[in-house]
């Protein structure tokens, strides 16, 4: 286990079924606060599925059934008295494929604050600027906030999605392979950004890129066939893992 820190997300015996297929086979993992935690593993190992449990995006899939518990800051997020909207305000998500709304740059960032009650133009302007600065996009777009988000490059679009997610100041930011569709320069910018964001946010990032995991994460969890094989500090996972399977994977012998 990594050095003791406050576990913000406690996952206990989490089993997830797609219909009758068991996709997560009893996962236990405690994700530390204000750190970057990377989920690695071959495709289909369940890492994205687990990520989507933390903001209950799996609710959208009818056939999904969940057993076990996930507690965020001590509260069971699957319990009946949890408002999923309040949960998602606290647990933001950035998707693999950048998905800005076909609206202006400004409207993209202002979308969620507006939904959640910020109406004042001055307040919104301030939030938009702060969020775009937070996503390291402000200088590139400050002169064209009114133009379409779809005109941005792929990397800019993904940073806009990050700005959009942090505009409502969530506690946790879930990132599902946020750089997998980007070129190396855009990827580097996203990685830098993740480093800056971790002072304020707890970040969980799914990645296929093991160099990326070593560069940006504090802790790494290795998943294989729906099970969490090993979870430790990133350094330990990549230099001296305890399990043979982990070693085989991180050294590129399989996967």
């Amino acid at each position, binding site marked *: 286990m990594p050095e003791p820190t406050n576990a913000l997300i406690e996952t206990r015996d989490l089993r997830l079924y797609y219909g009758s297929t068991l996709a997560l086979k009893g996962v236990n993992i405690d994700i530390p606060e204000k750190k970057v935690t990377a989920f690695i593993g071959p495709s289909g190992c369940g890492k994205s599925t687990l990520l989507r449990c933390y903001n209950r*995006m799996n609710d959208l899939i009818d056939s999904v059934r969940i057993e076990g518990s996930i507690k965020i800051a001590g509260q069971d997020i699957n319990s009946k008295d949890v408002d999923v*909207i309040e949960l*998602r305000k606290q647990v933001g998500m950035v998707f693999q494929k950048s998905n800005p709304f*076909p609206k202006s740059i400004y409207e993209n960032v202002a979308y969620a604050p507006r939904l959640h009650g910020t109406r004042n133009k001055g307040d919104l302007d301030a939030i938009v600027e702060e969020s775009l600065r937070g996503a390291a996009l402000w200088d590139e777009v400050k002169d064209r906030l009114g133009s379409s988000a779809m005109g941005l490059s792929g990397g800019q679009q993904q940073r806009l999605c990050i700005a959009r997610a942090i505009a409502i100041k969530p506690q946790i930011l879930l990132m599902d392979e946020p750089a997998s569709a980007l070129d190396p320069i855009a990827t580097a910018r996203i990685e830098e950004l993740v480093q800056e964001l971790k002072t304020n946010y707890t970040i969980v990032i799914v990645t296929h890129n093991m160099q990326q995991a070593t560069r940006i994460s504090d802790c790494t969890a290795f998943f294989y066939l729906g099970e969490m094989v090993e979870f430790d500090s990133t350094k330990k996972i990549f230099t001296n893992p305890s399990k043979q399977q982990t070693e085989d994977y991180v050294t590129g012998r399989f996967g």
Partner: protein
Amino acid sequence: MNFSRKRMDVESVVFSGLTGVAAWLIVAILVVILANIAWFGIPGLSWNFVAGSTAKDMFNPEHAGIMPMIFGTVALVILMIIMVVPVGVITAIYLTEYAPAGSALTRFIRGAVNNLAGVPAIVFGLFGLGFFISFVGGGLDDLLYGGSAEPVWGKPAIIWAALTLATLTLPVVIVATEESLKAIPPGLREASLALGASKLETVVKIVLPQALPGILTGSILAVSRGAGEVAPILFTGAAYYMAHLPSKLTDQFMELGYHIFILSTQSPNIEQTRPILYATVLVLLLLTFALNVVAIAIRMRIRKKLRSLH
């Protein structure tokens, strides 16, 4: 090596010829119809005819005017659109956004929509008479006036004719809206939900603006389908003759399609009536065309606005 052709490819020549002939046949039929109507219709057009009322003798070119029928047709189509678009769009939203995908219920509703599209127009007319006029209208009369002697709602009226036409064109609007909703990337919905938007907020703020061109396409098709239909309004509101324009929803109205039917079957002097019959058909075609052009222009403006955001 030798790549030169050894034989004529008879098969492909014959087949491409056949398909080409079939395609051009459609064009030829359309041209013949339009040319015929234009040729015989244009001489009958005059300001007095188009803008005049039909008070004296509707079968005599000297006195006939079709302004009330143009008014009735336009009013009918506008009322129909007001009724059919909200219901159709809401149904499509339910089917694509809310109903569980591929469930028995959605398959049942889709089947019902498809079957509705296949029902003959005259059946809609009888349905409108039985359901809207007798049941709904009669019920309203009982409720509001305690079934007094003179029916107010329980008789043919423009509102019932528009509702009957709306039922007829409902599948068109549902299908067109559904197609445009399905074309919206699921990632946009996910992005909105992940930001803590409710389903309703996501539909209203993200999904519907994107679907607007599709909804307008549905409306255009509904206008095209509905504007020329006579059978559904025959028993539900169209009048043979009215001295005044309809001024309230419970009034009857005169309509171009029905008027064409009257001109072609009721005239005491066919030769005399023929020029205005042609002219009336031409006006109906032009009117449908004009309604379509307006809707297409609106759609193009919205598309352009959306595209500037893409």
